[in-house]
């Protein structure tokens, strides 16, 4: 009897998006199950349902053979499911011991035996961490260990880990692998999500591949190769746009020489021609955003030469913008929009122009943007807080659609956006390139990159590991390059 089994679990959001269309999944004790899937395949939704953070709109869950419905995360935790989210929710100002025992009852802040209990837990994980250390002072790998120890402290029968290694360095990953194996050997079930195919093959006993809200592959790992898994992940039902061969490129427009920053493992040299679209393929934490921020000088520690149309450009965001470089950042809410502003003022935000606000000109520009980008809004005065994700994203792009812009850097421009808006954005990017812009677009949606880009640079572990012509490339290969063991041999 499996510890946890999902039968026909479906999730349909009120806005009509179907995230899961009937998932069947068994998680037996003593086994490491890897859950794999491309972005938007429904992984996070499934995790949210299993951990009690969301209730499915269809299907049922069985826990220890009994039908169960978790109403709140705490229900799942009491039942014995510990979830370690990608962004580990620890309290940085409390000690390791206090974090591990955070939901222990009782009155006294420290009780006799606490230290020993925590030390025993940490010893089981082979983690050399002082129980009295402040969590805020720990490295990210140690924090991961603390989160796992907290899961053990409540004696979880099932441990769910969402991309536990995405932000870890090699030796830290090895520690996590050891812990995962150990949990399984103790008879617990582990469900872990990863994009790294090599670690999936090495670590898991069973692989479940999720694609477009359904399980498309559910098999023992030993019977599979990395290529099998990549093949199952790829081949999505829709690709927003068909690939189109594009005319020859012009002169080099953006040139980057010896661009170095502490956020990247090695200096980057890059040249992007007029009308060329360069894709940056990489997983979370691969360094794709860091590269874009370095080119834009938003990373203050970035050094090296950046030139536009042969002219060297100074090392500040202002100078980069003045030279015609623009960045559409990954986090629309945190880095893109001013929530209190309407569309008009958000579009007019970048520096340049005169001293006085020209209402009519701005309104006309915003109205033009609304029309050309098909932004669904009442008008230029609509607050951006009222816009949906896709429309908000269009506003952050619209900001840079001025004749002045010559180089456009886009970081995950279609993340979290519905298919309709997605294809509009892709079409727009292609149109801008046709007009002569040099475009660098980072994305973890490889199918999309392959449709859009002329050339793809693959990033992994903060360095560019491959540069390929997009025309002869397929998604499987790209998945293997970015997350498999193909190119380097050893990734851990």
């Amino acid at each position: 009897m499996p510890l946890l089994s999902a039968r026909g679990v479906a999730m349909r959001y009120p806005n009509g998006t179907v995230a899961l269309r009937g998932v069947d999944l068994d998680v037996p004790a003593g086994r490491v199950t890897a859950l794999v899937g491309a972005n938007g395949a429904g992984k996070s939704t499934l995790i949210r349902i299993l951990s009690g953070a969301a209730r499915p709109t269809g299907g049922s869950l069985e826990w220890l053979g009994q039908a169960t419905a978790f109403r709140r995360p705490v229900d799942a935790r009491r039942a014995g499911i510990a979830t370690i989210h990608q962004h580990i929710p620890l309290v940085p100002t409390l000690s390791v011991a206090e974090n591990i025992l955070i939901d222990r009852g009782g009155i006294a802040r420290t009780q006799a035996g606490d230290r020993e209990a925590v030390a025993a837990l940490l010893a089981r994980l082979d983690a050399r961490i002082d129980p009295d250390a402040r969590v805020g002072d720990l490295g990210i790998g140690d924090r991961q260990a603390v989160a796992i120890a907290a899961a053990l402290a409540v004696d979880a029968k099932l441990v769910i880990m969402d991309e536990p290694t995405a932000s870890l360095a090699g030796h830290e990953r090895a520690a996590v692998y050891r812990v995962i194996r150990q949990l399984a050997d103790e008879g617990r079930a582990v469900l872990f999500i990863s994009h790294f195919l090599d670690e999936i093959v090495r670590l898991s006993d069973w692989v479940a591949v999720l694609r477009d809200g359904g399980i498309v592959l559910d098999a023992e790992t030993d019977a599979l190769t990395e290529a099998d898994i990549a093949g199952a992940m790829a081949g999505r039902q829709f690709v927003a746009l068909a690939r189109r061969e594009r005319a020859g490129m012009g002169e080099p427009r953006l040139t980057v020489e010896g661009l170095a920053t502490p956020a990247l493992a090695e200096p980057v040299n890059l040249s992007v021609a007029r009308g060329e679209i360069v894709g940056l393929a990489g997983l979370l934490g691969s360094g794709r955003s860091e590269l874009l921020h370095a080119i834009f000088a938003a990373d203050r520690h970035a050094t090296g030469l950046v030139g536009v149309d042969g002219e060297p450009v100074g090392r500040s965001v202002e100078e980069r913008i003045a030279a015609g470089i623009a960045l559409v950042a990954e986090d629309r809410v945190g880095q893109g929009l001013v929530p209190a502003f309407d569309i008009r003022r958000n579009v007019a935000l970048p520096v340049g122009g005169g001293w006085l606000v020209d209402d009519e000109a701005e309104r006309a520009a915003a109205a033009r943007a609304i029309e050309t980008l098909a932004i669904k809004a009442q008008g230029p005065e609509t607050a951006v807080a009222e816009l949906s994700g896709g429309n908000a994203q269009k506003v952050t792009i619209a900001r840079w659609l001025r004749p002045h812009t010559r180089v456009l850097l886009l970081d995950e421009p279609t993340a979290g956006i519905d298919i309709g808006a997605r294809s509009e954005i892709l079409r727009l990017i292609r149109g801008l390139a046709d007009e002569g812009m040099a475009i660098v677009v980072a994305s973890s949606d490889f199918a999309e990159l392959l449709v859009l880009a002329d050339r793809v640079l693959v990033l992994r572990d903060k360095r560019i590991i491959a540069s390929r012509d997009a025309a002869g490339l397929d998604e499987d290969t790209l998945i293997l390059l970015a997350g498999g063991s193909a190119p380097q041999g050893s990734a851990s």
Partner: protein
Amino acid sequence: MSDAIGWRRSFGLREAGVYYALALLMAVLALAAAANGLPPYFSTGNLTNIAYQASLVGIMGVAMTIVLITGAFDLSVASVAALAAAVLIGLSPVIGFPLALVAALATGAGIGLVNGAIVNLIGINAFIVTLGTLTAVRGLVMVLTDGRSLMVEDPTVLAQMLAFERTRVPAFWPLLLLGLAALAVGVGMMLRRRRQGRALRLGLMIGAAVMVIAALAAGPGFALPVTVAYLLVITAVAALVLSRTVVGRRFYATGGNAEAARLSGIDVTAYKIGAFVLSGLAAGFAGALFASRLGAMNPTALQGTELTVIAAAILGGTSLFGGAGSVVKTVVGALILFTLTNGFNILNLGASYQGLVEGTVVIVAAAIYTVGGRRGVAA
């Protein structure tokens, strides 16, 4: 979702509440005064007096609003004002009033620069930094004055000070003409915006109407204390810069989303430091006015005023999280606080209840803004 709501919202509590509150408060006080057989509340003398009393807090409140818009906080304004007052009184007999005035303003701006630099370049929380300068600058005042009251003896300097602070400026024609012009602009804008269904600038309309009514009611001989004129000019300039210029836009963007502003090429640090400099400058100016009022100051002058200034900004609906605020509403907030004080005086209610009532008013206002704001987002 629709902008028609935005249009209607301009009349809602969240957007226009502070104007309703002042009108309601004045109406209540006028009725109470009439019922108690006191002289009419709406007299030129009484209303001018309220504006005069509110002017120093209003001037500092305008700059405080800009600091709050950028997402920071300045607790040191009252201490800085006291230091500027001490500089003015101490230096006037030596280098003459005009130069001493410049020195006082420079002192204020300089401390603002120090505040801004420490907050933004070292990265210490503004609350802590300005709490420190609040105490340290007050200590500096004590050192400079040796703990004693300062006084101007020189009659020329005293005359210059009175001219700087006490003159009355003829206000009938300026108020009437400006008011009518603003009213015309406002009505035109209102018609256009109403047709387009966009949010209105209610402040402009109300301000214009008040100016015209005040001028007509007071008659052609009407003269304003020059301090009130300073307040009006400073508020008008700040309001225009904030609403009509790119610089103003960037202050809001800096507080609304600093990272988005930075990635749009805005020098966020410069704007944040600039707001502190403006705050110091305004405090210096207010301090100079305070010193000139009596030609004297004592070292504990204006103690605690920073809280009144912040209360005025909060009454005016300025967000403590940055990105939103209106200098006109802050000045109206200051008027509310001083109307309350004035009301307690004329109704002879005793000062004991004053703090209780003022504090409650501030909390109620904040509650209305918070709840109203939440509904606004939900709508």
